[in-house]
């Protein structure tokens, strides 16, 4: 899960790899804040799979690539 300077740099790095999914960094920040916001709260409880999937869905990270496992 890496950060790249530009599309050109990312495509060069991916040349010898099977590509995954790309999102702009501002959307990554949105995702990180939704995902990790409660992580050090003294009242933290584990997210369920459905809670995490809802975060991805809300940020329009959909399709097979962003589908969490059921178990």
């Amino acid at each position: 899960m890496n950060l790249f300077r530009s599309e050109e740099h990312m495509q060069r790095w991916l040349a010898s790899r099977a590509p995954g999914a790309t999102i702009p960094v501002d959307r990554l920040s949105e995702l990180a804040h939704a995902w990790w916001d409660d992580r050090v709260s003294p009242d933290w409880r584990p997210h369920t799979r459905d809670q995490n999937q809802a975060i991805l869905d809300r940020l329009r990270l959909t399709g097979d690539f962003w589908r969490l496992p059921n178990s």
Partner: protein
Amino acid sequence: MDGDDLSLRNLTYARLLERGRAPTAAEIAAATGRSLPEVVAGWERLHAEHGLVLDRVTGEIVMANPFSGVPTGYRVQAAGRWWYGNCAWDAFGICAALHADGRIETSCPDCGQPLRVRVRDQRPDDPGLLFHCLVPAARWWDDIVFT
């Protein structure tokens, strides 16, 4: 995750925040009055439930997501300290978890040049950067260190 393990997990995170680094099992045992084997067994259960990631040899913390227990290529300055993140997602996650603005320092995997991003009010100051995730969500925990 039962109540005892949840308590152990939350105490482990609290100690991480106090010290600015991942605590050792011995430190948690001393802080809680639990025996070292009790802490190790509890951490193992948390590892199995993805609550922590342990080094398979030493049994110590490698990841307390989004924080890394070991130095990485993602350094984050937030809430008055420097931290290590496990990846780009976790680097932003440290700002999120601490509810703080921050500065992320890493390098472009292609060219190796430094990348520095300031995060203010949850927004990065360089919107031209791109995040790439190689591994599909269904396989993130197959090998979380690689992911």
